[in-house]
């Protein structure tokens, strides 16, 4: 008998003013004592809803509409809240997606621990009677997650994001639960901090022996940490395999697509692929295989017959082709062969010919003075940074949050002026531009934003967004601007353009929005493009698509691009040159493969060590 047994669990959202959505559809799985299980899926696949259902924390309009959840043999699917209470946290604890807000803001950390112990007088540590010293026990727990005991006296707002997440983890371990459910526990934290927390988690899990259900969209991390990985798509589990097998011998075409979007940036040749299309709309009735419209190997029956999750290889797979094949691997080999060339994006090691730079930053330093209270504080955001951007080339700027990346972008685009040093765009001194000259300069330098949902005005159509730079910078009239807008949409792969011109942003998917954002940046025919983490908010399966688009545009049009990121993989794919920034100082700079392959600076190495290595743990 498994520790957690989920059988045919369905969760339906029935909002008042729109159609019901079955977010989780007849899902069955087990988690065994001491096992580390990863649940992998892209945004909207139902993985978080599934987690919330297992925790029995669903709120209206979502509700469990079928199936059962058994914990240690006991059915808890419909257990009333009052009975459930004594089981909570003792059996199953959790760390939420964003712990920014999961601690009560008006009570101290110690108080939050005390609350937990008081709610479970019979649980761990209280067993021997009333002898539990809350302070001592909470202190021990904090030390487990590498926090100082003094944190007990602090309020949540006095802690950094990483510290809060550690507190949340310590809190989850307080009663020595048998299963810990982690829902994207490190999303939003800095890469290095993420790495640190996850390493600690794995170590504690091995030491204390609790089971883990780890929900994440981050494929590399899941593959590396988990013993077993389940892949979820459109409300269903489509594959369930031991992690090592999932890396090398996955069977489902969707798993193959997901894994294909990941690669090790240190390899000689790095190749990534993407899955075209979008997940189905679950408010509509589904027939056949849900992945069929995006599947490269689908056959006619896939459209009509819904596959079941059946044993295959060392786990389970939901695919008709695998079901029918004598050698399931052959299906995937076929898939790989069928995958069209534009679905794969590869970067080799060849260097490109250097051209004359369009922008030169020389010895730039930026100091901020903030007056808080009586004594002014001086912060040096950027210190003595020099580099050049060349047409048709991509320069990646890599660094932790707070390393000065954004300040450099602001200096480059003329939003701010440097304290000292010079920035020249061809013959223009960017650091001395007046208001009007700045407007002119911006014709030549454009931005691609991180969040495609915030980069487009929700009330303005695509045509409007694209027409503004055309009319302002190129002096076009309305009709000309519309024609050009359509051309631009075709350029970024939104075709036929007529279908998109009059759409509002919310009618587009994340990837489509990002394409519109890129089209807008291209509109005034800029010579310089600053892209600030343009793929970090997108789903893994379409990231490579956007990287490929950016790459093509830059090369074809001879645009110089500054690519700001903390993701070394995309930097490796796109950039000719990499610069590493740490605390405002450029600590490393050189051809991409050189910097990533043989990092010298300790900070660059930390960044590299923070990159997940799927399958690495199984190999050693």
């Amino acid at each position, binding site marked *: 008998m498994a520790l957690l047994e989920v059988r045919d669990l369905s969760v339906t959202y029935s*909002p*008042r*003013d729109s159609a019901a959505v079955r977010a989780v559809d007849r899902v069955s799985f087990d988690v065994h004592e001491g096992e580390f299980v990863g649940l992998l899926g892209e945004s909207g696949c139902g993985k978080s809803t599934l987690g919330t259902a297992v925790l029995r924390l669903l709120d*209206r*309009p979502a509700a469990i509409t079928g199936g059962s959840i058994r914990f240690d043999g006991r059915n808890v699917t419909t257990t009333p809240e009052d009975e459930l209470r004594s089981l909570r946290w003792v059996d199953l604890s959790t760390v939420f997606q964003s712990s920014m807000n999961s601690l009560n803001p008006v009570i101290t950390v110690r108080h939050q621990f005390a609350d937990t112990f008081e709610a479970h007088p019979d649980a761990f540590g209280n067993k021997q009677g009333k002898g539990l010293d809350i302070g001592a026990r909470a202190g021990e727990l904090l030390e487990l997650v590498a926090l100082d005991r003094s944190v007990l006296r602090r309020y949540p707002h006095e802690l950094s994001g990483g510290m809060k997440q550690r507190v949340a983890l310590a809190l989850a371990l307080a009663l020595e639960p048998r299963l810990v459910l982690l829902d994207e526990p490190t999303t939003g934290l800095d890469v290095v901090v993420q790495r640190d927390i996850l390493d600690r988690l794995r170590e504690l899990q091995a030491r204390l022996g609790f089971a883990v259900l780890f929900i994440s969209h981050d494929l590399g991390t899941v593959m590396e940490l988990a013993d077993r990985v389940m892949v979820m798509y459109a409300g269903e589990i489509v594959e369930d395999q031991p992690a090592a097998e999932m890396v090398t011998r996955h069977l489902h075409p969707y798993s193959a697509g997901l894994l294909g979007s990941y690669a090790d940036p240190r390899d000689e040749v790095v190749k990534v692929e993407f899955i075209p299309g979008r997940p189905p709309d679950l408010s509509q009735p589904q027939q056949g295989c849900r992945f069929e419209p995006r599947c490269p190997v689908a056959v006619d029956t896939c459209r009509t017959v819904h596959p079941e999750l059946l044993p295959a290889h060392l786990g389970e797979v939901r695919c008709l082709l695998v079901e029918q094949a004598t050698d399931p691997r052959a299906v995937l080999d076929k898939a790989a062969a069928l995958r069209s060339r534009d679905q794969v994006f590869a970067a080799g090691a060849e260097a490109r010919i250097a051209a004359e730079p369009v922008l030169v930053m020389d010895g730039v330093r930026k100091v901020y003075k903030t007056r808080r209270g009586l004594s002014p504080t001086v912060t040096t955001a950027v210190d003595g940074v020099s580099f050049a951007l060349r047409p048709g080339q991509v320069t990646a700027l890599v660094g932790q949050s707070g390393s000065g990346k954004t300040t450099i972008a602001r200096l480059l*685009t003329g939003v701010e002026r440097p304290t000292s040093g010079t920035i020249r765009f061809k013959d223009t001194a960017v650091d001395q531009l007046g208001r009007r000259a700045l*407007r002119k300069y*911006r*014709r030549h*330098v*454009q*931005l691609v*934003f*991180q*969040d495609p949902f*915030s*980069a*487009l*005005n*929700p*009330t*303005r159509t695509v045509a409007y*967004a694209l027409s*503004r*730079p055309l009319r*302002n*910078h190129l002096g076009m009239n309305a009709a000309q601007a519309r024609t050009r807008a359509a051309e631009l949409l075709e350029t970024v792969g939104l075709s036929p353009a007529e279908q998109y011109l009059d759409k*509002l942003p*919310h009618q587009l998917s994340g990837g489509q929005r990002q394409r519109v*954002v890129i089209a*807008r940046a291209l*509109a*005034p025919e800029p010579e310089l493009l600053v892209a600030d983490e343009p793929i970090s908010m997108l789903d893994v399966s379409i990231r490579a698509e956007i990287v490929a688009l950016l790459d093509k545009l830059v090369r074809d049009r001879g645009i110089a691009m500054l690519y700001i990121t903390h993701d070394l993989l995309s930097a490796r794919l796109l950039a000719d040159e990499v610069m590493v920034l740490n605390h405002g100082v450029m600590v490393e700079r050189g051809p991409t493969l050189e910097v990533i392959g043989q990092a010298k600076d300790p900070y660059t190495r930390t960044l590299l060590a923070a990159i997940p290595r799927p399958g690495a743990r199984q190999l050693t």
Partner: protein
Amino acid sequence: MTSIDTEGVRVTALAAGRVSRLPGWFVILWRNRKCRIGLVMLAAFVAVAVLAPVVAPYGPRVDEFAASTGPSGAHWLGTTARGEDVFSQLVYGARTSLVVGLVAGLLTTVIAVAVGLTAGYLQGVVDEVLSFFINLGLVIPVLPLMIVLAGYAPVKGLGLIIIVITVTGWAFGARIKRAQIITLRTRDYITAAKFAGDSTARIIAFEIVPNMISLIVVGFMGSALGAIGAEAGLAFLGLGDPQTTSWGTMLNQASLGGALTTGQWAWLVAPGLVLALLITSFTLINFGIDALSNPHLRED
């Protein structure tokens, strides 16, 4: 305090408007039952006010009837101590309340939007100064200020009442609009508009204001409601225009004219009741807008 998801509302409204020919915001409001009732009630009040000469049997100032009579066939709600028809006054009173609500509501909203937008968008010293005035406007006791202003005014009239209400009522709306624009101005699409070469005025008018429509409508409804209440209160205290028929003046006269002692309950009850109904219609409409803007308050 919750930040209101005005962008979301705007999107829903745009989506709704696509289906039918009516404006999107109206479709959304109409779908909400409470809101629909409120809109119908308000429409009825507007109709009565516009058609007052047709609806009312007599003029509001005609005082040729027997004084202080109870309800009868000729005078449905009786007559005043001066011999005027209560029902006719009630009908004409709707005009005053609606005019005050509309005009003072509009003026207040315009000031609140202007101050809020300027403070929030420009920031820096301008913001510091304007914010101080907003906060000052919030803490100064409103009715005493109204009374003092009305007390100094050389002439009493509806215009004065409207001005007094506007001067004392803009601060709350301005504060909310300032907070909203501060979150909106950091959006990437604002930066994008700057890089697209748009001017500040254009950015405010075309990028920011459309996203604040629902907030502005809610603000207007609140201000209109406050203005109607304030006018009734001031008129009841005898600080209104004695020449204008309003529900506040009617209550004032009912209370002075001995409606309490002569048992003319209709004269006393009716003006308060219609005032309550008008306020109810506004409240119901606000329910619809609120529920849309704040997902936490949606009943599900």
